[in-house]
């Protein structure tokens, strides 16, 4: 549909739909943010109300930051997420390149084997993973989490990236081969820059579940030194008493790093340098 012919009603309806969906998506985040800045009574009496001078209270943030350990939790979450994304992108892209570029026996089978990981939830293997981590002495280390998340992210990465790598011109790779580039240089210097938008997509899809995960930190790394933010926030949720101020404040704080990472990657999503490489 050409832009010139779109009628005003049609455009406004489309925007109405988009705006309402945006409101629905953002609302829980908004609720968390406003309530994190209110006192305990106000949270329960008027959860929808914006913080007023009377109800404004940063006690939640004082509690969270005053605990002292939260800096460590943030650091742990950050290290785990960034390291896992880096490994997923590196190995996922390499596997995808091999699958899409080389003809070898068992190519399709290998592709399917890697794709199965998308369908089978990694949590089914929790017990075996825990046993493995215990056996290798990796329990209560960030390495354990990084390894598990890398394994969890690679199938989707391979799946998405191999599709994209098929679209990279064969002529370009062959020109590189004739110019004497090694297969590694072709991968790193020609192919990776061209699939950067796909890499950013994969990074975003990989990042969010890792940052939000509670399961594996709880099972594999529950020690004080290796707690992640999501696990750390749980100390405020008790069986009988829950410190809602602190929980909401911790969650609000946890949004920001992931928001920053998202902005970094989404810039890459938009930027395309493929034009001009091939017609």
């Amino acid at each position, binding site marked *: 549909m050409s832009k010139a012919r779109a009628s005003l009603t049609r455009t406004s309806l489309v925007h109405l739909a988009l705006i309402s969906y945006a409101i629905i998506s953002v609302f829980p985040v908004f609720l968390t943010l406003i309530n994190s800045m209110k006192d305990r009574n106000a949270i329960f009496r008027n959860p929808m109300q914006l913080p007023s001078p009377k109800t404004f209270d940063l006690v939640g943030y004082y509690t969270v930051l005053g605990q002292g350990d939260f800096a460590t939790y943030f650091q742990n979450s950050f290290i785990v997420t960034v390291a896992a994304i880096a490994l997923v992108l590196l190995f996922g892209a390499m596997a995808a390149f091999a699958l899409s570029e080389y003809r070898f026996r068992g190519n399709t089978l290998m592709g399917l084997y890697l794709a199965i990981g998308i369908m089978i939830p990694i949590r089914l293997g929790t017990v075996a993973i825990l046993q493995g981590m215990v056996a290798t002495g990796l329990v209560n280390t960030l390495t354990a989490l990084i390894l598990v998340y890398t394994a969890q992210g690679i199938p989707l990465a391979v799946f998405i990236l191999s599709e994209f790598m098929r679209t990279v*011109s064969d*002529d*370009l790779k*062959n*020109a*590189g*081969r*004739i*110019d*004497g*580039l090694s297969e590694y240089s072709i991968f790193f*210097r*020609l192919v990776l*820059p*061209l699939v950067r938008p796909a890499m950013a997509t994969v990074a975003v899809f990989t990042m969010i579940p890792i940052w939000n995960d509670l399961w594996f930190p709880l099972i594999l790394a529950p020690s004080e030194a290796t707690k992640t933010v999501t696990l750390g926030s749980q100390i405020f949720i008790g069986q009988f008493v829950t410190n809602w101020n602190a929980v909401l404040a911790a969650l609000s704080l946890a949004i920001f790093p992931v928001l920053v990472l998202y902005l970094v990657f989404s810039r890459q999503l938009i930027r395309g*340098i*493929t*034009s*001009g*490489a*091939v*017609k």
Partner: protein
Amino acid sequence: MGSLQLKSVRKSFGNVDVIKGIDLDVKDGEFVIFVGPSGCGKSTLLRIIAGLEDATSGSITIDGAEVVTVPPAKRGIAMVFQSYALYPHLTVKDNMGLGLKQAGAPKEEIEKRVAKASAMLSLEKYLSRRPAELSGGQRQRVAIGRAIVREPKLFLFDEPLSNLDAALRVNTRLEIARLHRDLKATMIYVTHDQVEAMTLADKIVVLDAGVIQQVGSPMELYNKPANLFVAGFIGSPAMNFIEASRVGVADAKTIGVRPEHLALSRDGGEWQGKVVHVEHLGADTIVYIESEKVGLFTVRLFGEHHYAVDDVVYATPAAGQTHRFDADGRAIR
């Protein structure tokens, strides 16, 4: 500088034989064109020569040295691709110099050769630009420049003009012809366009279904096609084929006459027919005629002629310009 020999080169993908035994001898300084319909294996053959595909069997020698196990970069070849295949993140200068840089050539040498090549192709102004900032024709010139800079034994062109528009195609064709004269290099060129083949080549290799149909100079192929395929493929409009029995020729299965070797008259001639369509091209007039005796055939007349649909006309083949083919499609001489 560069000669090339292919000996019974074969290539199969799984059970499909794409190249079915090619023997070819290319002499130093020759401009050889592989031409054929799509899917005839011409590009695959070029890739095998470049080392981008492995031949299933057979031997390839460049300058007398067997290269089957030599990687592309060490074969002393340069290739120009249909899609240009420029490195998007490098400037024109770096695009042209990358091959030498990878080979470890000294910086001044690279500078010198890039300067020389860009002067030949009038690309000096664009050296610091990236491929995205160039037009299609400029990109293809950069791709050709990248090949020249390597000073290869063998230039390989894979349909280099297919992505260009008609006017640019003619210009670039002239440029390639001039380069061949200046560099005196051996060039192998793949195209499906017979005009490119006829205008550029010293020697044309006509391929069909993975087999060489005929090798020869453009005029040899035009005047003495070895079989029905070559006769029909070379020349535009295509040669008219007529069942020999319908025109009373006993010692052949099929008779071929080129459209330009038929004379047309309203008064009388050998084949009577009705005009079904006329194309006026200015320099040429193409007349399609349906005849009871020989079926539908094409006549190419030079200059302007006024025939209307349904006119009754008579066509006469020029003496000595008919081709005879036997039951297997081979030419009878």
